């Protein structure tokens, strides 16, 4: 119980700290009004953000790996991360249209089947491994890993919903038997836009652009939201829409059989090794040495 509380505290503090780093343009006016000071030099901000996000990610990874000293999870994640990184490798060599990327499909399914912790690790490590093998290590990596990790972790919120809807279906409601896949596809759609939106926050305050889309310290909350939405609509909406609908198409076309395979293997992975302490004996001459 105590361990679970600590775990929850780390997830919450790391996530809130990470969100504070990413969302600072929206609450900065309140702070400036309270303190009456100017803000730090903008040139140092991207560096500081990368550092702080990196530390939040480190804390989340530490907690997510928690009791992962388990051969089954280590082997499973290693292989699934390799498969997903191979998809990204292929995507880097043959770029798809707009922001289309096949990696979120498997991250969502793994998080849904194996739980939030495995989902978080799947998302974060896919981005890490694919960056290592494609030479894509850069200051953007902590933010990418953080966000992709959350894609895999947050998918567990669908589980109670699916359970509730399945219960209604059992009672004779006219819900489709593909409802689970539709929900996952909807989730993929949402994260297609959210991922782009969050990744934009990392760079938006430092991009010089038209006045109606740029960030300027001292703007009110509503003005900041308005400017960010304008920036997002102009620069990212189409790109992210391709990513989001790509997720939907992949989940609708390949999701159901992949889900069945992952579930089958989850059952197969549910075996435990128990050391037979009494049987660990060595015959030496006529004696049995325990």
């Amino acid at each position: 119980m105590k361990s679970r509380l600590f775990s929850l505290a780390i997830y919450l503090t790391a996530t809130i700290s990470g969100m504070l780093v990413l969302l600072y343009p929206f609450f900065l006016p309140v702070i400036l009004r309270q303190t009456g000071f100017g803000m730090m030099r903008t040139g140092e901000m991207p560096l500081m953000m990368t550092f702080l996000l990196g530390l939040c990610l480190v804390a989340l990874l530490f907690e997510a790996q928690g009791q992962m000293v388990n051969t089954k999870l280590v082997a499973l994640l290693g292989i699934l991360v390799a498969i997903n990184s191979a998809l990204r490798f292929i995507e880097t060599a043959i770029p798809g249209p707009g922001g289309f990327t096949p990696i979120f499909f498997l991250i969502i399914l793994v998080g849904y089947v194996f739980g939030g912790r495995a989902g978080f690790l799947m998302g974060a490590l896919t981005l890490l491994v694919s960056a290592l093998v494609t030479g894509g290590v850069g200051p953007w990596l902590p933010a990418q890993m953080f966000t992709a990790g959350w894609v895999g972790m947050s998918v567990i919120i669908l589980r109670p919903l699916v359970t509730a809807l399945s219960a209604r279906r059992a009672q004779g409601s006219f819900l489709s038997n593909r409802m689970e896949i539709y929900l996952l596809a909807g989730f993929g759609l949402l994260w297609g836009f959210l991922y782009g939106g969050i990744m934009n926050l990392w760079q938006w305050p430092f991009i010089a652009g038209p006045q109606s889309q740029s960030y300027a310290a001292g703007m009110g909350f509503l003005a900041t939201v308005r400017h960010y939405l304008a920036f997002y609509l102009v620069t990212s909406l189409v790109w992210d829409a391709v990513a989001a609908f790509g997720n939907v198409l992949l989940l609708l076309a390949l999701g159901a059989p992949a889900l069945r395979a992952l579930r089958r293997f989850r059952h197969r992975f549910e075996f435990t090794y128990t050391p037979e302490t009494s049987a660990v004996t060595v015959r030496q001459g006529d004696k049995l040495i325990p």
Partner: protein
Amino acid sequence: MKQPWAWVSWLIATIVILSITRNPLYLLLILMCVIFVGMSLRQSGAETVSPYSLWKLAAWILLLSTAFNALTSHYGQTVLFTIPGKLPLLSGPVTMEAMVYGFTNGLVLTGILASFMVLNLALTVRELISLIPQAFFPLAVVTSIAVTYLPTTLRQFRQIREAQGIRGHQMRTLRDWLPLWMPLLVGGLEHAMQLAEAMTARGFASTRPGEQRGGITPRIFLIIGLVLLAIGWIAQLGGAGVYGLAIIVSGALLIFGGLWFLGRESPRTSYHSPGWGWQDWLNMLVSLVVMAICILPMLEPINQTLFYDPYPTLSLPPFSPLLGMAMLGLLLPGVFAHFKSTHEKLDLKARRRASHGRTEV
């Protein structure tokens, strides 16, 4: 120079300087240093799998960044021409200042990309994985498995495609990916099963199930550290300056402390660990000194020239020869790589000559 941490110190120094300056003269100087290091590494035989070409990427970034800022940011007093009409975003004066600012941003981005490319060139994937702290050894094992299994996955994908092709499989719709995707996934999961059994048989993670490593102390360190990070960040944004930074640093130290505490419980052995040679120490020292010269507030007369703003009227960027000389310290890894490749070439020539002489005899 083969010690990964020496390369990391060089990278940190380069990125820090690139992030704090907007002076195009210094940016060009650093970019030249980074390119020299990269070219020296290539000469000494380093190879990378990066699918990007730095030159093409740099050209695109500089072009797009300059054009985007010039066409959409209409500040500045040196007007080059005016886009007529009421086109959203575009209409208005196009100024020289906006072009220079866009070009400067492009230089920063190119410099950051180039320095990471150099790191990818200098270190192998194995060496990059060895940088993962000891506390994260399960994640390091996962990463190692993934990196090792990746070429096999790509080979399997090719084999499955060929096998399906022989059976007359054609790719028309998205669902036609299913006969390729499912064998790849199921084959991978079967492999994971075998790997898990093999690892268990060899005693990997043979601790009691459910045993929490490190106990509660490192987790308390982490929680307090994260809270301090958040407080320090808000204080820093609110203009608390040094105090905010001090809170952030103490939070970071607590997090690192927690990880160190945990890492001690997972001793790591390696077949061959790269030692620290004099070149590594010298490079690390020089990188730290260059970074300190650029960021220390007490050296402001020198590092003040790092700050430059082309708005509202374009002027020549300031340049301190002393700071420029200091930045040339970032060339050091390239100089070492260059000497190494020259030495190797001379050595090879001498050996060839010797063997040629023996044949003649």
